[in-house]
């Protein structure tokens, strides 16, 4: 039983079935990150996939653009409680990226320019569930939102969608990333409100 605040009415009471528990809708695109925004030149940009056996696959910017592109429209849910519906992206599905990668791994550790890391089970990144996104709303992805390219895993809280993505490391063992070792949930399902460690 919750405490009642008699003078509080609140505003956003439409119970939208697409809004996970504890979230509110915003039309803005707020920014959350732990440090300065890295600025990565497209000429220097590189994305690598490293398997559990040490095989490395690399793409430069032209190489990423040469892969088949998807245009997903997805809802975003940030652990700081805002959600944004029907955002339009363009990028490369991880199914495409990993198509020729031999692996028996169950986990992926994603690392970014600037040093950020996050971990996601591999099955959450395949079958059309995740992309390397470089275009938002028809424009090149702005640096503060993760450009040149970010991971997009919209069914998990947005901290899993690492900005400024640089390397994907496949692993047999799960290794918690930056926020996951700073008190946030290891998996981060918005529909189960897995915000903090232990939830």
């Amino acid at each position: 039983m919750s405490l009642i605040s008699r003078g509080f009415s609140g505003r956003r009471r439409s119970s939208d079935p697409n809004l996970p528990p504890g979230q509110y809708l915003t039309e803005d695109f707020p920014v959350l990150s732990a440090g300065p925004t890295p600025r990565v030149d497209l000429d220097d940009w590189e994305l690598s996939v490293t398997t559990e056996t040490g095989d490395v696959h690399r793409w430069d910017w032209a190489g990423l653009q040469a892969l088949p592109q998807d245009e997903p429209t997805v809802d975003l849910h940030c652990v700081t409680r805002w959600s944004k519906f029907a955002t339009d992206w363009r990028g490369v599905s991880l199914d495409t990226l990993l198509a020729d990668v031999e692996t028996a791994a169950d986990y992926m550790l994603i690392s970014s320019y600037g040093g950020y890391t996050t971990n996601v089970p591999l099955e959450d990144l395949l079958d059309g569930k995740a992309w390397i996104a470089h275009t938002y709303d028809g424009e090149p992805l702005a640096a503060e939102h993760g450009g040149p390219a970010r991971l997009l895993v919209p069914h998990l809280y947005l901290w899993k969608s690492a900005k400024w993505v640089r390397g994907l490391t496949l692993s047999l063992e799960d290794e918690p990333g930056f926020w996951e070792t700073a008190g946030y949930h290891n998996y981060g399902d918005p529909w189960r409100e897995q915000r903090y460690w232990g939830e």
Partner: protein
Amino acid sequence: MSWRVAVVAELRDETDTARTLALDIADWSGHTAGQHVDVRLTAPDGYTAVRPYSIASGPGQQRVDLTVEIDPNGEVSPYLARDVTVGEQLEIRGPLGGWFVWRPAQTEPVQLIAGGSGLVPLMSMLRARAATDSSAPFRLLYSVRRPEAMLYADELIRAGKLEDVDVSLTYTREAPPGWPHPVGRLDAVRLEVETWPPSVAPTTYICGPTAFVEAVADLLLAAGHEARRIRTERFG
């Protein structure tokens, strides 16, 4: 992590648009300077809203202070900063956040840079430092719209409690009469004068609106500060 009952023990108006709620929380285990709590409000019809608020008080104080700035478009902040009364109960959980924190065991120079109500978690760090006899060198650069918008003015300036902390102010809209610096957005020249140089290798904490944090962090990188020593917290 479970919700706890917090009793509003005291209310202090900080500015026309910001108020501090001093909370009594049973079995509060303490916090680390820079952390926040979630506050949950439940309307009579069962509707709930939860928002994060930074803790302003230092660790080890009996009460937990939250300073809430009214967001005119906000759903929760107008209630907390205008309507809440002493004795009322709120639900909170926390403390939360393990990155944007300062611990007394840190001995390196610290640079705090606040935009508007972004001062709140940095104030907790200043108070933590004062309460623990830390000798870590601290500087604060605080950007506010106008003199009346300054939070904790007595404590920061007039009472001299922080006399060994170098506090610098910058005004973005309106300055006191005779103010010797330009009024407007913080620029590279002022930032260089009012903050530790890269050679000191400070740990820098920046908190404020996104545009402010982005601009300041970019200027610090351009001045030669290392990205890994810069911690940011943004809102809006």
